[in-house]
């Protein structure tokens, strides 16, 4: 047992036992962030806040949700929406949050791609971030099952069928995933478990890892500049805040984060109260019916680009293309052969690659929702092929990139 002096204040008492002062220094006042950043650097905290909101609203939904195929639909649409005090608010927040979190994730991802924040030394930031993307996707999908409406049921049917592996006919695997021949009670119960326990645990773990990976390589900055953090920190501590290239995470960086969050919350709550339809598909307000497929089925908007990569091809190549699309973003730090850490605008051909990729994914997203007919199919096919061409081209154009 260590020796303890009598503490003169609560702060001191806590510091003796928890080293709160050291924690505060290491995690906040002397956690150095580069000064040369813009609002896009706040997306991480915006995501953390959104995750928090999803967690809290989810807790209140959980109090009245019933994971039972006979009662799930009404427990959401009747009990929560009309009986529970402010139940509708939790549901709208949860639904809108689940959709909008992907918008922020994509902005966060493309910020990383634009500024080269996945390069040498920062590969783990990218990989853990992609892990989070996958975990959030699984979380979104499993959550989509829970109201047990038509879209829940048929999305569950279609997505689990992907695991049959096309002509491999791994129907046993599909049944194993569902615990039934079709999505039924076992399916709903296990996706409920995944949604409220296993995946959130994984997400929390991954968030901790993601923060941890930032610590040693430090956050990137607008110009990809490399500098001596120790020196910059000393300068800051000496009061030369103007000359220093860093700022402390708290309160300086945080003050900007919170302002950006404020702007984001205005948009967020506007959507929650006045424009929630985009996040709560009307078709899912029809109860699940295993004998009737809705006229148009499509995934939520954030899955559309990868769905469209699957759709224009015959079953087997489609599945391979789909699998490729799911993992290829993980490979980004290794496919980008250029040593330059700089915004895309200064990186020659990569600049075009970046905008082409962004626009291609948006086109894929558009086509993914439209009925696969006529001109839309053709555009979808071209966009899907362009997606592959871009990835194949990436190592080549970055290998020949001029060193800055």
């Amino acid at each position: 047992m260590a020796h303890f002096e009598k503490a003169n204040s609560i702060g001191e008492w806590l510091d003796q036992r928890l080293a709160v002062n050291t924690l505060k220094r290491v995690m906040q006042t002397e956690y150095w962030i580069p000064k040369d950043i813009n609002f896009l650097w706040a997306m991480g905290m915006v995501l953390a806040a959104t995750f928090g909101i999803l967690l809290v609203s989810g807790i209140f939904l959980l109090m009245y949700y019933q994971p039972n195929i006979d009662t799930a639909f009404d427990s959401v649409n009747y009990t929560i929406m009309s009986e529970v005090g402010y139940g509708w608010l939790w549901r709208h927040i949860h639904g809108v949050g689940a959709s909008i979190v992907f918008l922020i994730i994509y902005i966060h991802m493309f910020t990383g791609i634009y500024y080269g924040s996945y390069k040498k030394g920062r590969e783990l930031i990218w990989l853990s971030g992609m892990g989070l993307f996958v975990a959030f996707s699984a979380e979104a999908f499993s959550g989509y099952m829970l109201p047990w409406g038509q879209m829940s049921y048929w999305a569950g049917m279609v997505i689990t069928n992907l695991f049959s592996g096309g002509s491999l006919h791994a129907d046993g695997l599909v049944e194993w995933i569902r615990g039934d021949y079709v999505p039924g009670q076992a399916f709903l119960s296990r996706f409920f478990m995944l949604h409220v326990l296993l995946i959130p645990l994984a997400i929390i773990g991954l968030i901790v890892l993601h923060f941890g990976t930032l610590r040693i390589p430090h956050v990137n900055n607008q110009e990809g500049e490399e500098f001596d953090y120790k020196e910059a920190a000393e300068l800051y501590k000496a009061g030369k805040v103007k000359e220093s290239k860093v700022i402390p995470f708290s309160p300086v960086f945080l003050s900007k984060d919170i302002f950006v969050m404020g702007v984001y919350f205005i948009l967020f709550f506007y959507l929650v109260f006045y424009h929630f339809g985009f996040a709560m598909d009307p078709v899912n307000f029809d109860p699940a019916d295993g004998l009737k497929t809705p006229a148009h089925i499509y995934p939520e908007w954030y899955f559309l680009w990868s769905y469209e990569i699957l759709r224009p091809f015959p079953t087997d190549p489609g599945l391979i293309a789909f699998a490729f699309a799911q993992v290829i973003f993980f490979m980004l730090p290794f496919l980008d052969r250029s040593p330059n850490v700089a915004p895309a605008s200064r990186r020659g051909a990569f600049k075009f690659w970046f905008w082409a990729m962004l626009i291609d994914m948006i086109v894929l997203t558009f086509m993914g929702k439209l009925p696969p007919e006529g001109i839309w199919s053709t555009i979808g096919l071209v966009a899907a092929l362009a997606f592959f061409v871009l990835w194949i081209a990436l190592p080549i154009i970055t290998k020949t990139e001029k060193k800055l």
Partner: protein
Amino acid sequence: MANNTKGRRDFMGMALGGFTALGGIGALYAMKRSWDPLPSVKAAGFTTIDLAPAQDNVLITEKWRGKPIFILKQSKKMMSKVSDETKKRLIEINGAHYMVAVGLCTHLGCIPGYDPTDESFLCACHGGMYDATAEVTKAPPPRGLDIPPFKIEGTKLVLGETGPEYEQMLADGTTMPV
């Protein structure tokens, strides 16, 4: 760093913090409301019981708000033993007296059993006893069985609504609000 800048920073930080706390209170209010019993639960809190078919010294068990309700029509013989004070516990309809009470021991909430020969209730959990008017006769229960809010409508009782007879019982301290 000049002192007045620092002052301004602290002030703005505190203003923001205070305002955020205000929002937090709003959110807590919504959370509290979410935790409240549902309107359907509240609406289901009324039960109508017809006392006409009750027979002397035969215990009837009903259900109200998920709890057992004891109804015991008192026989002439039973009434002769009842003091004026305990009589206040009984509900009188057309000259007949009824004991109506929540069938949960006021000690720790077990259901006492009725012995018609002995004309008394015994709670098996801790040995508490009540007489036929549900007044306590043996500790540990601190008081007789609680009487649910009721309103008399002819020969029927509406449990959950408060009538003048029940209000009188509350005023006399005969029972506690349930």
